[in-house]
């Protein structure tokens, strides 16, 4: 990308806002977002990320983007993961290990069923929407 002008920045913001809202990342309509702050990584977020990629590959699921984010503040239940699938509420899972990651793909992404006992609430509403 080259340097942009004010106009281009505004255009870029609009475009990306749409994409972020629809969560439409390069044609993928679902997203698995792994919390990769120091706390998450120390609790094993890297293994979890790898497991997601592995299971999605095994199941030949191609509409799910796996991305990273920072700390959500739920350090006591790290690693944390947010799962966004169309038609389902955006869900935050905590205490996710490789086995739970596998379960999330099988049950939440494929079966459209929440995985019980690992759901946590986002600690705050989003001020961008307020």
């Amino acid at each position, binding site marked *: 990308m080259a340097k942009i*002008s004010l106009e281009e920045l505004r255009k870029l*913001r609009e475009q990306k806002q749409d994409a972020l809202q629809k969560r439409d990342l390069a044609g993928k309509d679902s997203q698995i977002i792994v919390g990769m702050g120091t706390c998450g990584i120390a609790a094993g977020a890297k293994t979890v990320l790898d497991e997601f990629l592995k299971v999605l590959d095994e199941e030949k699921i191609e509409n799910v983007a796996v991305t990273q984010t920072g700390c959500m*503040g739920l350090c006591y239940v790290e690693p944390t993961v947010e799962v966004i699938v169309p038609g*389902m509420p955006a869900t935050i899972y905590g205490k996710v290990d490789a086995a739970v990651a596998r379960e999330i793909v099988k049950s939440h992404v494929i079966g459209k069923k929440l995985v019980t006992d690992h*759901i*946590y609430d*986002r*600690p*705050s509403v*989003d001020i961008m929407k307020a």
Partner: protein
Amino acid sequence: MAFRNYILVCGGTACESSRSQQIFDNLKLEAEKQGVADEVQIVQTGCFGFCEQGPIVKILPEDSFYVKVAPEDAHELIAEHIIKGREVKRLLYDKEKAAKHAQVEDIKFYQKQFRIVLRNCGFIDPENINEYIARDGYAALEKALFEMTPEDIIEQLKIAGLRGRGGAGFPTWMKWNFSKNVESDIKYVVCNADEGDPGAYMDRSTLEGDPHSVLEAMTICGKAIGAHQGFIYIRAEYPLAIHRLEVAMAQSKELGLLGKDILGSGFDFDIEIRLGAGAFVCGEETALLQSIMGHRGMPVPRPPFPAVKGLWEKPTVINNVETWANIPVIIHKGGEWFSKIGDEDSHGTKVFALTGKICNSGLVEVPMGTTLREIVYDIGGGIAHGKKFKAVQTGGPSGGVITSENLDTPIDFGSLVKIGSMMGSGGMIVMDEDDCMVDVAKFYLNFTVDESCGKCMPCRIGGKTMLGILEKITDGKGTMKDLDTLTEIANTMRKASLCALGQTSPNPVMSTMKFFRDEYIAHIVDKKCPAGKCKKLISYVIDPAKCKGCTACARKCPVSCISGSLKQPHTIDQTKCIKCGTCIQTCKFGAISIQ
């Protein structure tokens, strides 16, 4: 097929103890009975951070938040909400009541947290500038560069009433104004990311989760004061934060949001990273600037203040990471918006790193004026393992303890000072009945004695002497006169130390002595440590009535100081015992106790 509704039942410890399991079972039963079992999924979740109002049930996608739900309510919830689609008003959380803390109108208040600084942490990919831009990133910079004069920018900070989050709480606009008003061809902007407080990690998490917010804010400051160069001073112990900053800076430069002629405005601004070796004193602003210039990190007397004469004798604005992260939002939404959040004394929010003996440790961001009780019990879920709350240390090694008496004090700059603690950077360490307050004071003082740079006498010698006295007390050799000596040295250190490290390091001692004087006296007069922490003052004893003579403890003891024959009560040789506590954990019969 996806479900029509999802019912989330809190399965956290607090709600569990108020029959949330029963609620869960009843809901399943009712869904079954009323024939909607395959239209709703009912799941158990972790703590919603609202335990005081538990048990909590949340129904999606409507986002209805039900509190104090009883198992008997299951029938109505299914019949009304799920089948007829009408919320059960009686059980909904009263949003009006919660609105008293933060007055920004249209926010759902059942969540006590309000995130300005952490607005993007956990939402965006910090290594993708597009996601930051999509969430109004660099919109404040646009405004600052094209629509605002330096005076306008500073005026907005003044209206906002933003005060520094690095510890001292100095009004940010004033600092910027000092620098702006000094004539100088070269000026600097510095971000203090040294974060040396034990237990604090909010600055690290902010940089890891949202590095662009700091870059954007520093550039805005550059425009406001007329600086073209910024430095971020960050400890080398934060490799991930450094990496994310480097990625963010590279991406900003590529888009021309950093560097020459930003967005075609003609304004230049660049930022460099400086790594610190991780000395606590290097977080003190004058020492930090020395360190950036390549000197040994030691404080120098103020005035002149950095805002007037800082790096290479040039005007330098230095702010804390959290202070910076607030600025793009203030410029974008306006100072007025910001000034409505919080209480009268302090505006905006504060991020705390909640750690220690708490159920839900983590990063929390709350409006100023929230009470400690809300943080500990609602957000933190209360004290871990059902123990009793004793105190919270705020302000790290410069602060003091807050006891249960003051749990309802609003947390803001003024109120904390009034009760003898301080905001500090935002570490919040929760202590329970098992913590010895003399030991806690010793821990913090030990830290500051280690970290003192040694430049001035009151801090270098005073701290060490005070530590020696505390050790004497925890060894059971203290006298009542020692308490007076501690106070005397503390007063001298407060008055005569050069920097705030020395001036504030007696605070934990003075504060624990004030609120827990009886514990000091127990150590000195009774030669006892009530919490059972100070090794020299406790002994492990076996109750012969309870001991079955199983020999388990004797086999585990690392120094073999337990003797006795099989099926006969055992005894511990106190002269050899190292008080490691292994035996107490081993005994299945609860025969060993601390005395």
